[in-house]
């Protein structure tokens, strides 16, 4: 997030696009509801499902999956055409306005309503006018913006809008991606990415490599960006990746196109999994290493607002399990490293030396203070919101972006659009939440959510077990018939191994960020006919 959670009360209104906040980031969802319901703040929501927040929205856009960019362009079209944008901000702090404005010309409300499947183009005009008057407006998004072949462009579009409206660099504004996992922010900050060292320092820059080689006392560091997760699996199948070491991830359930992932894991010469359970992924391993669970660990994590927080050891370690960092260190030592970290704090001290944005943080400070990066020096108070006064790159870049459709369209064989996501009670692949009694009892089984009209067309009743298939596979799952999802779209949460949504999803991905298009593919939902005598029985 460019801005902070505690700034929610400072906003005059919110655009919620591609995030089912009250289910996936519930504490933030409640804070938003408090402002809207109890304090009369304005709310605009765009999502193919009529999510809970839509109930209080001044404008709700039930857009077709994969059409965020068209909607954002449509809103900006009105804002530019009616001269509602923040001229001073755009002139002083941004560049690229001319190209953007030109591209926006054809995104008239009617054109956009056609792409997004909206009944009332006038709403786009109304919402744009409302948004322009909200000083400031905060924009929140999650995977409903990014998990598309056009994910990177979707993110850029959100930034375009907020720059046009002058909502960056102010408290209560911002482009605020809600990170889905407890430390996905930190994993990125720490260089858990194939192209960058910690603090996003590119591996392709000679100077960075020299700096890290010196800090680590290592030989020359590799200069070629590595493979992304999806490429790793492709290359394993191609025979170019021979060994894979997976720490605390469950790609068999979380990644698109499950059959493909399993084929990749089976092709490996060495597959090491470090986890707390025998996950669906660990079953394919050659070696399984038992790690501490989160309450057995001490260390730091970084939340969605760049806030670094200490975790303390609550429980004694389970069995012979070990700290993740300890296990890595032991393997490294066997490969010749002289690493001898005595605890997580010792590692953090090294992190500070090579990660400028964390340099001013210490364990002692983190116990006492609320610190958000960048925090470059021990005296620095941390950074509540980014881009104050100027952007890190100098001028803010407005990028002209065209809407592009998702990779897979519907056709007579696969007439419905499948979108995936999470539900309130569960998390990701369910490794943790489905092993938690209360959560499991509250939401014990998978379902496919579909619109009443689609259900009627296919003669499907609420609670009936149906077959959902795509070009990649088929699963059986209970139907949940609702009025809140856009007709023509079905939704499956991906937590459930026994009805895994990712058997169906497509392995297409964004060309730049390599984000898989988990939010849209074509599918068919069919009645499962009971076997009758006339059908021949089983003999």
């Amino acid at each position: 997030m460019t801005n902070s959670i505690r700034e929610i009360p400072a906003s005059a209104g919110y655009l919620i696009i591609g995030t089912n906040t009250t289910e996936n980031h519930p504490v933030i969802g409640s804070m938003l509801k408090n402002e809207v319901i109890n304090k009369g703040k304005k709310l605009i929501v765009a999502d193919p499902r009529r999510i809970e927040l839509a109930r209080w929205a001044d404008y709700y856009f039930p857009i077709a999956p994969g059409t965020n960019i068209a909607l954002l362009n449509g809103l900006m079209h009105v804002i530019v055409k009616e001269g509602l944008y923040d001229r001073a901000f755009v002139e002083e702090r941004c560049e690229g306005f001319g190209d953007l404005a030109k591209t926006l010309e054809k995104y008239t409300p009617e054109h956009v309503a056609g792409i997004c499947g909206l009944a009332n183009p006038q709403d786009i005009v109304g919402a744009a006018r409302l948004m322009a008057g909200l000083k400031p407006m905060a924009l929140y998004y999650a995977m409903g913006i990014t998990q598309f072949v056009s994910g990177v462009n979707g993110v850029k579009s959100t930034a375009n809008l907020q720059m046009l409206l002058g909502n960056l660099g102010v408290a209560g504004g911002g482009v605020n991606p809600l990170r889905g996992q407890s430390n996905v922010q930190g994993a990125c900050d720490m260089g858990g990415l194939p192209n960058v060292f910690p603090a996003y320092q590119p591996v392709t820059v000679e100077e960075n490599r020299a700096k890290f080689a010196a800090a680590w006392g290592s030989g020359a560091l590799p200069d070629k960006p590595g493979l992304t997760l999806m490429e790793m699996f492709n290359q394993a199948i191609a025979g170019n990746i021979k060994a894979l070491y997976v720490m605390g991830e469950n790609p068999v359930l979380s990644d698109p196109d499950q059959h493909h992932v399993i084929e990749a894991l089976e092709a490996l010469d060495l597959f090491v999994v470090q986890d707390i359970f025998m996950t669906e992924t660990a079953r394919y391993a050659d070696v399984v290493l038992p790690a501490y669970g989160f309450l057995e660990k001490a260390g730091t994590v970084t939340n969605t607002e760049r806030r670094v927080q200490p975790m303390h050891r609550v429980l004694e370690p389970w069995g012979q399990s070990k700290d993740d960092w300890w296990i890595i260190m032991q393997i490294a030592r066997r490969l010749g490293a002289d690493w001898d970290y005595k605890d997580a704090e010792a590692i953090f001290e090294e992190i500070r030396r090579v990660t400028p944005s964390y340099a001013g943080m210490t364990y002692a400070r983190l116990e006492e203070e609320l610190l958000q990066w960048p925090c470059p020096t021990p005296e620095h108070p941390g950074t509540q919101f980014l881009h104050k006064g100027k952007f890190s790159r100098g001028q803010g870049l407005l990028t002209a972006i065209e809407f592009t459709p998702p990779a897979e369209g519907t056709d007579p064989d696969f007439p419905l659009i499948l979108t995936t996501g999470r539900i309130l009670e569960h998390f990701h692949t369910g490794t943790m939440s489905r092993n938690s009694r209360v959560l499991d009892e509250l939401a014990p089984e998978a379902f496919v959510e579909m619109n009443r009209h689609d259900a009627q067309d296919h003669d499907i009743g609420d609670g009936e077990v149906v077959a959902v298939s795509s070009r990649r596979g088929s699963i059986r799952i209970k139907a949940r018939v609702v009025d809140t999802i856009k007709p023509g779209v079905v939704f499956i949460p991906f937590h459930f191994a026994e009805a895994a949504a990712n058997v169906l999803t497509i392995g297409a991905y964004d060309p730049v960020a390599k984000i898989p298009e988990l939010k849209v593919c074509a599918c068919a939902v069919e009645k499962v006919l009971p076997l009758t005598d006339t059908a021949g029985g089983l003999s």
Partner: protein
Amino acid sequence: MPKDAIGPIVQGQGISLTIDGQAVMGNKGQTILEAALAHDIDIPYLCYNPRISKTGACRICLVRVNETMFKTACTEPIAPDMRVVTEDPELTEIRKGILEMLLAEGDHNCLYCDANGACELQNLVMRYDAAMPSGDFPRRHRTIDEASSKGLKRNEDRCVLCGRCVKACAEVQLNNVWQFTGRGGNTHLTSDLDAKIGDSTCVNCGTCAQLCPTGAITLQPVLGRGANWDLKKESSICIYCGVGCKIDFFKNKGGQLVRALGHPDGPNQGHLCVKGRFGFDFIQKPARLSKPLIRENGAFKEATWDEALDFVAARLKEIKAQHGPDAVAALTSAKCTNEDNYLMQKFMRAMVGTNNVDHCARL
């Protein structure tokens, strides 16, 4: 009592008053209770909580103002040169009287109450030496429902009508499940117009239970049990979404997790969702991996750490020697700490010699 609810003195807006003879500075708009708590001056309260709006319902916080007036400290704004007395024989009598009425009205048998030892009413009863009044009081029996909800237990015979749960749901969770209904002596709670709590629209965030000062609304047990005074607590950060809620985890003498309460200092300001509240027992499931495993002839066999680590290191060396460092790849984890992630990428870059390291940020 979290002090962060009360900001620093705003320049030019300070108000000076005395509380129990002590000179105190407060901000315009602050109540007597807030000014007192900011100075570590103890005024008893029951319906007040910094996370919700003020009701002035219980009158336990009554103080004497400028010698002659009684005011509820949690609602009365401070004024220049105000003189506040927080305790005197008359105030003590009033408080004791209120507490005894509350005792008479309900069924406060601490012996089998979940809140025993962590109950704000119990603390006040002890402090003011209140006792069950003698005589026959009409006992109103209200709803007891300890089974319909997976998250909450409800025993309204322990309810003191402070309204914290109503406000917790209306102002923190924003779900508006609880309401008061009935008048006078018949006032009682209802969830979603008399639905059972388990059939209501409750989303099991547990915030009402966390803010309930007694054992009227409590959390369903998850795993371990134990007397409140035997529990140990330590804070950590929720393992689920990226909000990063700060949580106090409680464990019993046997080391089992008992409950999770939202910590006021985190980004969550004390609030939690159902996952942070109830989703922790997985970590003490027997199915947890407890020993390293190596696959031999298709099946996993238990191994020592040295065997497992030697095996992994040897195979990595072989593969690297034979196919080059770029034939090795690793997935680091968005569920692990910064330190774990840092070391994993350092390992891959410095020791294996490849940038093939990624995680599921995109999923």
